[in-house]
């Protein structure tokens, strides 16, 4: 009955399912367009990521290699006595080195006349290095020793083409003629490129010695700082979130706290830096430049991030789980710790890793509490001094290098970024493995 009346009224033309009408076509086109936008966005993102990765690796890779001169020589006890009896002792040692180098070049069939001073310009204070070595290792006297000496940064830059012969102005740092010696040493294999362990393991050097600069000490500084941040911010943040989310009454005061926490997450980090300077150093008299203080400052900065993400993941746990726990007679605390918290753990870990990653890359607050690059002159002696001795952190070290005049430090800065990213990646991988373990479905 109803069918009949409908058919007689409209007389709708029968349409095939295989022919798309205008509306469907428009809808499908919109969908295709939207997909294309998404793919384009991902492509652009990947492109920039690739550009970033390539430029970091290209600029940073030279920091991991260095040019060294390898010379084997034997110093007899008589040589030592002779050298020690002279007025300029290190000069005498240097002469021994020059003679050995000359011998080695001659053995390779090259006769080259060079200014002994050039050695100092190319390899730094060879004499004192040797003297210190023999004083520290008297047993090596009279035995063949292979000395591997790092070349000056200008040699590195000359060899990789950044510095041309014409661009060099004769100065006490380098003479045009020194480059003849460099060429000869490279040809004979005396001068070669090797992996720069000093960069990984060393500490910061003076502004005049980019070759000796390493990031190791600041990696240790960052590590101790992250320990402080993790140990303080995770329990405090999670406890605060649990209280606010599960126990606190809903009133104006808790609303106010909530708004303030959200706002704290957006406060510029330098504000936390100056707060740390005022509170931890000037008021509480904690040591300056210490990873402990850096960690405390970064904890303040990380807490809001952790609290916000923890509260969000606690909220996401279905209320039926809480009911179930309460229903079998669990107390509020038991229901939270036995059931809600394990389910929220993946989210909490995600928030923590975001917070820690942020803290790891933070530079500005560290500069204010004195964790600048050049304090990272050595390794801490132990765990306690790791927390309280002056040290720097990776980002501050990178900043310090990037700000130095010598162009060789510039590539150190890029190399430091590679190390920083590797550290960050390691941290993230650990967090992801942990998160996998906690992930459960309900």
């Amino acid at each position: 009955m109803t069918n009949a009346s409908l058919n007689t009224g409209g007389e709708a033309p029968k349409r095939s399912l295989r022919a798309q009408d205008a509306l469907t076509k428009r809808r499908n086109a919109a969908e295709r367009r939207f997909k294309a936008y998404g793919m384009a966005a991902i492509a652009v993102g990947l492109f920039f990521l690739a550009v970033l990765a390539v430029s970091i690796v290209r600029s940073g890779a030279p920091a991991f290699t260095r040019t060294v001169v390898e010379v084997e020589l034997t110093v007899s006890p008589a040589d030592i006595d002779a050298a020690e009896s002279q007025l300029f002792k290190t000069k005498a040692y240097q002469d021994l080195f020059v003679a050995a180098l000359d011998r080695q070049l001659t053995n390779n069939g090259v006769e080259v006349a060079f200014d002994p001073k050039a050695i100092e310009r190319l390899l730094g204070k060879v004499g004192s290095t040797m003297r210190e070595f023999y004083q520290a290792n008297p047993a090596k006297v009279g035995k063949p020793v292979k000395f591997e000496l790092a070349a000056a940064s200008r040699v590195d830059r000359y060899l990789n083409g950044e510095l041309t012969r014409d661009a060099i102005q004769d100065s006490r740092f380098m003479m045009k003629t020194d480059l003849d010696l460099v060429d000869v040493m490279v040809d004979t294999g005396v001068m070669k490129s090797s992996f720069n362990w000093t960069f990984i393991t060393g500490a910061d050097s003076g502004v005049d010695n980019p070759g000796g600069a390493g990031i190791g000490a600041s990696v240790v500084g960052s590590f101790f700082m992250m320990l402080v941040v993790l140990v303080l911010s995770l329990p405090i943040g999670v406890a605060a979130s649990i209280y606010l989310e599960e126990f606190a009454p809903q009133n104006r005061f808790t609303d106010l706290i909530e708004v303030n926490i959200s706002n704290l997450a957006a406060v510029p980090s330098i504000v936390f830096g100056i707060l740390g300077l005022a509170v931890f150093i000037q008021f509480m008299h904690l040591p300056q430049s210490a990873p402990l203080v850096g960690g405390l400052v970064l904890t303040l900065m990380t807490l809001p991030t952790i609290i916000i993400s923890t509260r969000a993941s606690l909220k996401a746990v279905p209320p039926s789980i809480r009911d179930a726990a309460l229903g079998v007679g669990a107390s509020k605390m038991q229901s939270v710790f036995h059931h809600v918290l394990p389910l929220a753990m993946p989210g909490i870990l995600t928030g923590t890793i975001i917070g820690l990653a942020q803290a790891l890359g933070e530079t500005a607050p560290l500069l204010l509490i004195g964790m600048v690059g050049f304090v990272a002159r050595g390794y801490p002696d132990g765990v306690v001094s790791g927390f309280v001795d002056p040290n720097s952190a990776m980002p501050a070290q990178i900043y310090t290098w990037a700000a130095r005049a010598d162009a060789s430090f510039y590539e150190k800065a890029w190399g430091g970024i590679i190390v920083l990213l590797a550290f960050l990646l390691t941290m993230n991988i650990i967090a992801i493995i942990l998160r996998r373990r906690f992930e459960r479905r309900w």
Partner: protein
Amino acid sequence: MDQKDIKFRCHGVQVYYGDTHAIKDVDVDIEDKTVTAFIGPSGCGKSTFLRCLNRMNDTIASCRVEGDIRLDDEDIYHRDVDPVQLRAKVGMVFQKPNPFPKSIYDNVAYGPKIHGLAKNKAGLDEIVEKSLRRAALWDEVKDRLDTPGTGLSGGQQQRLCIARAVATEPEVLLMDEPCSALDPIATAQVEELIDELKQRFSVVIVTHSMQQAARVSQKTAFFHLGNLVEYDDTNSIFTNPQDPRTESYITGRIG
């Protein structure tokens, strides 16, 4: 029926959600070893009243309960009463099956564990088996006690929740529409189970299905708009309702 003990004695119970008066002056006595059904249209307050009996309403900040509810002559809203202890005595099964995202074993063992009911692992095993048997689930899951409880079918999950509730040896079992998410076969299984449970417990069940109330309960309370309209033996309610509203509801004219 008269010789049975009264488990819950409720007098003049009022419940407010903020300014909303959800339960108005309800008097009801719930007998031991009996299935009592609460029926009524949606929003009539039957679930709210059920949740008063084990103080689950405490978790809702805006909810306020007045009046006198006595379990074995003890006021459960007395200052000194710890709701956690109360809930161990008055178990609850919810509308939607809500097993913990843990193994079947852990689901059942959780309650006994936190209440210290088992002295050792063997004792706990025994409680788990007994509870699962009581919930008519043992034969289906005995070979996979370490698989997640969330992996069971809906009906099995609900029976697991019943096993979890009975594992703590409660005296009263509250069931809030336990079959509304289940198919007819699973419903039949749960109903059969309820019938057995009443040998040991006092069971209070909220249901939307009048057939279910008629099938499983001995006493029925009809709620309407927050009032307890009628409370009597199930037979009388369904065959000879005293109140015209009850009659309209059970014959399908309102609700």
